[in-house]
């Protein structure tokens, strides 16, 4: 006999619940090693670091919900950071327009991805790969292969490192606002519902009157824009952009979305799960580095944890 849970608990996705349980478990294990892991300062610092990954994972989730994937994250992140810093070097207007300009560059690259996937029907895995290569080429040609000397604008540094209220990091506030907007989009707008519909079956979505191609294109533009925005935040955090600054974010962002219970085949998943996935990945990386685990051990444990967690709740149904 199955136990009937109270109504609010029944609606909780087991994947999301497991992810949050794993976060708590990680913190408990960490606190056995050092009490510092439960201090508010440490937790806030982790949330601040997590918000960079959170912004990227938000865009990645939109695309994964469609059943597609965005492999252009690494260099779109770099484009966002580098272009915003480059604009900052161009006087007052450049400084003011730095953030919108970097964002715009990311959106344009995202639109190219989206156009290829939606209208040219090229598999997203390969067109985003090609756009990544083009973005890399543009940046290498622009910077001469060195890290650019332009530094980030004050606004970028303020958003990435400052705090306005109660010591809450601005980056976290930005992620929270973005998350609230995304949840609203997924649950309350026809665009958000269309994303889920397309992820389930694009044909059916098309037949029910959704302009699926436009939705797909816009979704990729969102992903590109958010990657570029994360690049600006990262540039603000380190006060300048760097070559390959986005390389470390592609696989963790996919892993975060999937660990949060979103199906990589599309159409299924909730934003709260992605939040859990992002925090989980960030905490895992942080705890392993605080324990002075060497890089190789971190990589191995990281891989085992992802597989282990997915075996807990991410399994496909058996063929029948």
């Amino acid at each position: 006999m199955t136990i009937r849970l109270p109504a609010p608990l029944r609606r909780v996705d087991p994947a999301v619940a497991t992810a949050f349980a794993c976060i708590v478990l990680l913190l408990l294990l960490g606190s056995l090693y050092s009490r510092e892991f439960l201090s508010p300062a440490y937790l806030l610092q982790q949330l601040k670091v997590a918000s960079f990954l959170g912004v990227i994972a938000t865009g990645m989730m939109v695309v994964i919900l469609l059943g597609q994937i965005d492999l252009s994250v690494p260099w779109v992140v770099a484009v966002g950071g580098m272009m915003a810093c480059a604009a900052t070097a161009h006087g007052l207007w450049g400084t003011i327009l730095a953030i919108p300009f970097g964002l715009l560059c990311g959106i344009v690259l995202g639109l190219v991805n989206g156009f290829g996937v939606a209208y040219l029907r090229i598999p997203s895995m390969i067109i985003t790969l090609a756009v990544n290569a083009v973005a890399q080429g543009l940046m290498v040609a622009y910077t001469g292969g060195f890290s650019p000397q332009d530094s980030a604008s004050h606004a970028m540094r303020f958003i990435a490192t400052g705090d306005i209220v109660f010591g809450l990091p601005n980056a976290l506030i930005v992620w929270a606002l973005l998350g609230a907007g995304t949840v609203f989009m997924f649950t309350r707008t026809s665009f958000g519902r269309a994303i889920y519909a397309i992820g389930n079956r694009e044909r059916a979505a098309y037949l029910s009157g959704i302009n699926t191609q436009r939705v797909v294109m816009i979704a990729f533009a969102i992903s590109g824009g958010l990657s570029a925005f994360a690049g600006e935040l990262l540039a603000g955090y380190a006060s300048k952009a760097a070559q390959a600054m986005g390389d470390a974010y592609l696989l963790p962002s996919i892993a975060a979305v999937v660990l949060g219970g979103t199906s990589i085949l599309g159409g299924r998943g909730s934003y709260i799960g992605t939040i859990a996935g992002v925090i989980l990945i960030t905490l895992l990386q942080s705890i392993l580095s605080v324990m002075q685990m060497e890089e190789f051990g971190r990589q191995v444990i990281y891989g085992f944890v992802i597989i282990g967690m997915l075996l807990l709740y991410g399994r496909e149904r058996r063929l029948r």
Partner: protein
Amino acid sequence: MKDWRYRLAEQRGTLLALAIFLFMFVVYVSKHPAGFTANVVQTAANKGVLLALVAMGQTMVVLSAGIDLSAGMIFIFTNCLGSYIIAGSTPMALLGVVGVLLAGLVCGALNGLIVIYGRLQPIVTTIATGSIYYGVALWLRPQPGNSDNFNSDIADFMTGRLPGGIPVSLVALFVVVLVVWLPFRRSAIGRAVYATGSSEVAAYMSGVPIARAKFWAYTLSGLLSAIGGLYLTFITYSGDASFASGGTYTLYSIAAVVLGGVSLFGGVGSAVGAIFGALAFRTIGDLLFVFDLDPLWQPLFQGVVLLLAVCVGAARLFQIRNRLDLFA
């Protein structure tokens, strides 16, 4: 359709990749200051074979409608392992070669077992296992290097030339095709991989051994990546656990597979096509040098050519009669 026309249509992707490669290589050689000499061919072959082998491995998995994002990491891991155990006297070093190949088989088999029995999606599984393989590689080689008594005789032979100027690496690639790809393609398991890639449900219903097919696809992918890693050891004499290099090889192998006419949806294409795709992709990168352009523009050039090449795939849109077929 007549028999030969059917066969031609089946090999269209491979032939197209061959044509692209030949065109680029002719341009490359004709502009190269040294011209068509054994040295130029040998260098190009050694560089091209690395990607060709990893791309062949990627093909195996892509044919089964999966994807192996750990291919580049197996490549790096076996490279690092090789830099340790290909050492000492020639028999010992040969034993080391066997060890490297076994390691690749084990990595691939692990991927396969997790995908099949864990029922996880290949894309996330191989991201995670790739991280593990990279971790082990880093454990072996925190800094690039090789063992003190590294056996460079084998390495020199495998990257050298036969009498007549034929690069040994090309011969080795040919042997791999003969020994691994052709028997696989003609075996029941190979057919099963194609069937699984075309439609897993239909294959299951017809009693095709899906699990075994997938297992061999992943295992052989690991083996082929390991042969690639072995070659990297032969060429560089050392092992280097470079994360960037592993990621690049994974992504380039996917690009090469697509250029080679293998469908990412599974069930269509051949490893031979992927080889030509890989060689063509490598030649794109080299073209700029012979055109005397600033090397800084090389990544952009490579990216744009890749973008144009994948957009060629959109040509099939003109054949679509019913708008609904777009969403198939």
